[in-house]
Structure formats: C-alpha cells, structure tokens
C-alpha cells in the first residue's frame, strides 16, 4: 500500500550528519522533485535554501527542515485566500479538466456555505457527461441545497447557468454555484464555450469567483491548465483536490507564482465535510512533514 512519504523524515535522515554537503543538496532536490515542484522551482528553492543555510550557519537537520518550511510558507502565503462573495447573488463558476473533482467539490462547498448561514443554489450546467446532472443533484440533496437542472437533454450549458442565476434572483438565494463539464485545455471549442458561459452569466450579474479545480496528482501540466483556464475563463481561485492521497501537489507553488491565482480551497476526501480553506502554514507543513 502506498504511504504518504515524509519530506521531513527524509531530510532528517540526510541532515543527520554534521556537515551539509553536495549530497545533501542532491537529496533535497530529489525530495522537492518527488513532490511535483518541477525542476525549475526545485532549482530556485535550493538556491534560496543554500543562501539561507549559509547566512544562518545551521548544520542541524531540524533547523534545515524548519528553514524549508518557512521558505515555502512565505512563498505560499503571498496571496489572498478569501472567497469574494459579497455580491448578491454571488456566482461561483467551477471549472477544470476531466475527473478532477468539480462536482464533488461543489457538493462540499454548498454544504460549507450553507452551514455558515447563507442560502445556496447549484446549477447543473454539465449537460454533456453521462449522468452528470444526477450526480450534482445527489450532492445538492446531501448538502441540503436547491439544484437547477437543464430543461432538455444536452441543453446549452450557458442557458442552464443563466437559469440558475435567474432562480437565485427570483428567490433571493445568496450564492450560486455553477458546475461545468470537464474539458481539456487543448480543446479550443470547449474553452470558448466556457468564455461564453461566463459572458452569459454576466449579462445578469458579475461573476464573483471562477474556481479552477486541480487534482493534486497532476504533474507539470497543472501549470498549462491554469494558464489556459485563466485566459478563457478568468480564474480567480484554485481548489486543490485529492490531497488525502500520496501526491503532494507541489506544482501549485509554480501555478500561484506564475499566474498570480491563489489556492483558496483544498479537498481531502470524498465525504461532504472534506473541504477546507487553504492554509499556507499547514500546507507547507504537510509538504515538509
């Protein structure tokens, strides 16, 4: 069975020696690469670490682990992780490639928000994937929120989104969360469709958040996904899912820094409650533990 590896344990092992030498830095590089930081970011982090270690003169493994955690924390924390939901209704558009956990995330988010006392309606604008509407409806039921379904099979997603916003306006619902079909960023027609969905929503109300859902197991392609979705849908926040697995999601550091989009939420399981706000301190800690 796969186990969650521990960077800290590895580091402790390698830093257990009195000196920090080339092999040490190689080991550090290995551990960063294994966490999907990618070669570029790994290089940068190591350069920074060398600097910090030289300046502070540490030789103790515990100190080095701490330095690394602080470095990562600092870089991760440069962004604003709050969801901007002051509009009424506040519309959240959820996007991403296939299979990352959009619908599940919406279920959790709907529950999260309604537990905080706000009313929520979800829009089943994935009119393409087999039984996607039913899937979202099940989550809506579990979360105790309303769902707007398409009126006809294969209905235009933009019109379902529109109808969901309309419902919210007519019923004074606070928050709208729109589910969309998974799409690979290489499909230009589908990316255009996303732009259209956004435009159509904005005929009624500005879009408050566009959340791009990213699977923690993704490798370097995560960056390409973020850039493409940013361009076509104007992403305002990232959700990193499946962090309960063995993947670390280190690519998210590069995504934040290259696109300026903050990670706002993390998903840690298939249950309704498995969602939390992004906390750079605990994320850095889990990267390093």
């Amino acid at each position, binding site marked *: 069975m*796969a186990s*969650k590896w521990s960077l800290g344990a590895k580091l402790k092992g390698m830093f257990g020696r009195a000196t920090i030498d080339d092999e040490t830095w190689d080991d550090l590089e290995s551990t960063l690469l294994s966490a999907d930081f990618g070669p570029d970011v790994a290089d940068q982090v190591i350069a920074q670490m060398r600097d910090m270690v030289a300046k502070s003169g540490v030789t103790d493994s515990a100190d080095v682990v701490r330095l690394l955690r602080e470095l990562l924390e600092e870089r991760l924390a440069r962004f604003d992780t709050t969801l901007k939901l002051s509009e009424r209704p506040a519309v959240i558009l959820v996007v991403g490639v296939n299979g990352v956990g959009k619908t599940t995330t919406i279920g959790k988010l709907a529950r999260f928000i309604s537990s905080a006392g706000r009313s929520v309606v979800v829009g089943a604008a994935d009119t393409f994937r087999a039984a996607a509407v039913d899937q979202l409806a099940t989550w809506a039921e579990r979360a105790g929120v309303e769902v707007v379904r398409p009126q006809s099979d294969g209905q235009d997603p933009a019109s379902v989104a529109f109808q969901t916003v309309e419902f919210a306006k007519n019923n004074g619902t606070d928050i709208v969360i729109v589910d969309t079909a998974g799409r*690979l960023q*290489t499909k230009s027609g589908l990316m255009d469709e996303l732009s259209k969905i956004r435009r159509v929503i904005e005929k009624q109300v500005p879009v408050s958040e566009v959340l791009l859902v990213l*699977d923690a197991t993704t*490798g*370097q392609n995560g960056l390409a996904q973020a850039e493409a979705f940013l361009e076509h849908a104007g992403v305002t926040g990232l959700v990193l899912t499946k962090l309960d697995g063995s993947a670390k999601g280190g690519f998210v550091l590069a995504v934040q820094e290259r696109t300026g989009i903050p990670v706002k939420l993390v998903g840690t399981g298939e249950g309704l409650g498995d969602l939390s706000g992004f906390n750079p301190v605990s994320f850095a800690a889990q990267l390093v533990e």
Partner: protein
Amino acid sequence: MATFSDLSSRLTDSLKNLRGKGKLSPADVDGTVREIRRALLDADVSLDVVKDFTGRVRERALGDDVSKALNPAQQVVQIVNDELVTILGGEQRRLEFAKKPPTVIMLAGLQGAGKTTLAGKLAKYLAKDKHTPLLVACDLQRPNAVNQLQVVGEKAGVAVFAPEPGNGVGDPVKVAKQSIKYAQDKVYDVVIIDTAGRLGVDAELMKQASDIRKATDPDEVLFVIDAMIGQDAIATAKAFQEGVDFTGVVLSKLDGDARGGAALSVVSSTGRPILFASTGESLDEFEPFYPDRMASRILDLGDILTLIEQAQEAFDADEATKMAEKFKTDTFTLNDFLSQMQQLKKMGSLKNMMGMLPGAGKMKDQLDNFDEKEITRTEAIIQSMTPAERDNTKLLNGSRRLRIAKGSGMTVTDVNALVNRFEQAAKMMKTVAKGGVPQVPGMGQMAGLAHGKGRSAAPAKKKGSKSGNPAKRAAENAGLAVAASGSGGASGAGFGLGAGKPGGPTPEELDALQKFLGKG
C-alpha cells in the same frame, strides 16, 4: 512550463563545441544526459525512473556499440529514444481472452482516471469485434456512478448489469460475483467490471478491490491512469500492483497536452504493458498503444530531429552557398560530389537517422538494404583521382581510369559507372539550380521540385516542419535534413531524394538512391 524546445536550444549550444569529435567521453555524455534528465522530469517521468533510465543511457553511450558517425549528443539522444521505445513497447501484447467464456476484465484506478468511460469504449470495441460484452456496475460509492455506466452502456449499445442502485447501497464484491454467473446464464462472452476510484493509500478500498478480484478471477485487470499524473504515478502504480495487481495499463486523456511521462514510470516500475490509449471522451476514441509515438511525445521527438538537423550541419552555411553557386555556374566537380558523399556519410548514416523516426520500423527492410559501403567505395575512387581530374572529368582517358581503378581497388567499369553517375547528377543539379525539374533516372518526373531557384541562401534555419503531429514533423524534418545538402531549392536532388516530402523517403526514393550509388 519548460518544454523540450528549451532543451533544444540548450543542446544546440553545447553541440557547437562537440561537433567534429568522434569519441565519447564522460564529459560529452554527461552534459547531454543532464539535459535529457531535465526534459524527462519536465515530462513528469518519476524521479527514480529518470535516474535509472539516464544511468542506463549513460552506460550504453559510453560503451562500445556507439556509432562513430553521429556526434556525441546525437548518439545520446538516439540511445535515449531507443531505450524509451524499448521500455514502453517491451511487453506489448493484445488483450487476453479466456479459453472458456466469459472473459473477465476488471478496471481499477484512482478517482477520475476515466474508468467508466473506458468501460464503454472497451465494450463498444469488443462488440464491433463480434463479442457480446456485459458492463458491470461495481462502483456503488460515487454518486450516480451506476447511472453513468447505464448511460454509457446505452450509448455503446451494450448490456449493463446493475442489480444495486449504488450511492452507498450494495456490496461491490457480491455484485461482481453475481455478474459472472449472470454472464454465463445469459451467454455474454466478456464481462467488464467497472469499479470505484480509490486511493493507493486507502487500505480498506484496496482490500475491497482485491476482494473483487478474488471473487471474479479476471483474465485481465486493467489499471487506468491519467496521462497528466505527475510524480505520484510510481507510488500509485506500485500500490495498485501490491493491493490488487494488474495485468495491463490503459493511459487516458491522451488528447490533452500532458507529456505523459507517467507511461514510462508505470511500465518501468511495474513491468506491466500499456495495452490501450484513451484519446477522448467519445466512445470511439480508443486505440492500441503505440510505444514509438509515446516516446516522441515524452521527448518531443520532433524537436530532437530539428536539433539534430541543426547540429548535424553536414555542411556549413558557407558550403551550401558555395554549392549553390557552383550549380548555377556549372562548376560542380567531383570534389564537390565527394564532399557531398562525405556529408551524407557524416549524417549519421541515413540508416541511423531513419531509425529514429517513429514508424521507421516499416522502412527497416529498405534501410537494411542501404549499404553505406557504397559511399565508401565511391569515396575511394574519387580520392584516387588527382585534383585536376576531379575538377574536370573530361581529362579522364583510358589510362587514367585504369590507374584510378588500381589505386582504389576497383575495376575500370566501376570508375566508368561513377563518372557517368556524377555527370548525370551535375547535369540534373544544374537544371534544378536554373529552376527546372530534373529527370531522375528510375524516377521519372518528380512533382514539387520546380521551386529550385538556386537560392544562395544557406539551408534556412527556420525550415523546420510546422506539422503539429510530432511524428509527422519528425519525418518531414528528417527529409529536409537529408535533402538539405546542396542548392537552396533542389535539396539533395543529386541523390534522387524528393525535396522534404512528408513521411520521409519512400521505398522508391531509397531505391533510386541506391541506383545512384551503383548498387541497384
């Protein structure tokens, strides 16, 4: 995101220093290996696999069986491609069917990998092949997974066995077991069991998968993995291998632009073959796995060949300019012919270059027939001539030809044949340089050559193929590389090769080439 084209430029720089060296030193190899390592990591190949793989490449590169014709970087790159294709294609095989139906195929993998869609594709594919597949809904966990499979089954036109509603209701192991009996009773010859996505770290669910396996004794357990997965591929693959064990792999979402290094990681670490590639959301987007295409994709081979072509520089920009001038002014001599031959030889021998192209397997026969020794023999003849003789073949009377034959260990007939071929080539190149279309012996008119305006430009650096398909691009660039000796337009017309025809030289062209070299 760093791409292989970054690697191309980095390698080109280091290659400038390496050009001309025939031997491989660790220093030569290490530079290129470092770059390859980075490219593989960018392509999401797992670190341990990268280390292992580059270690083997390094070993092989420093070993004896190295081509003396390629420069060090090219040799390393060629070895890398070879090794990749070997590993990826290593255990290639087809789907195993049971002797006594039903054949049971179980699908397993992480959440969101594409198992359910794959189940539909497999079913449709098998149905087309005159089988009677039955889809079995054993994901009783993910909301409406059973519904999803039912819709998929309907689209694929196959039956679905779904006695339990799912959404937390029902026991997947029981359903799996029941499905076998059901298939036997109703005479379905293939059972495809869709299971819930599960994490490698989830002991309970891994046990469930193992229980499903034990209950159904599948003929195939297919591990479905997303092509965009990163370093976690190896941990996850190993977990599934230990927890359930699988007999084959399916790589999904290959229609994205993830490089797919996971393919190498999984095959390398588990030894299981990749059987299929899933290339889209529609049920038809399903094909057998092609290792050479995957190798190209991971390494972005189109770029490699462009790189080699640039690096090869089988001739300087100057050389080409001079050459073009010569064609125009009719001063193309045997010396020039000789140097063209030597370029061809230096170009890593057509064979090795061609061997690197995806799909080169089909050309293997032609390639094996292609004898580089012909070039050597031709060289020998020319080198036995005096400079004056090389400048002007009209000087070659009987006694001179006899001397030349003796000096090169050939016969006068051989010498005559060469001189004839040369004179034909010179004539042809002159025609092309002036903008005409030459008559190539054995090939008739060649379409598309009329643009030979004898441009004195160097083989244009930006002449690389623009095709989006890496394999096609590689082939086109190779064609251009081979063809690029000589005038700006007529590209290697002296050897009867088409001007960068897509797909590389055809068998006919290779034949013509051999004729020129006196073999055909």
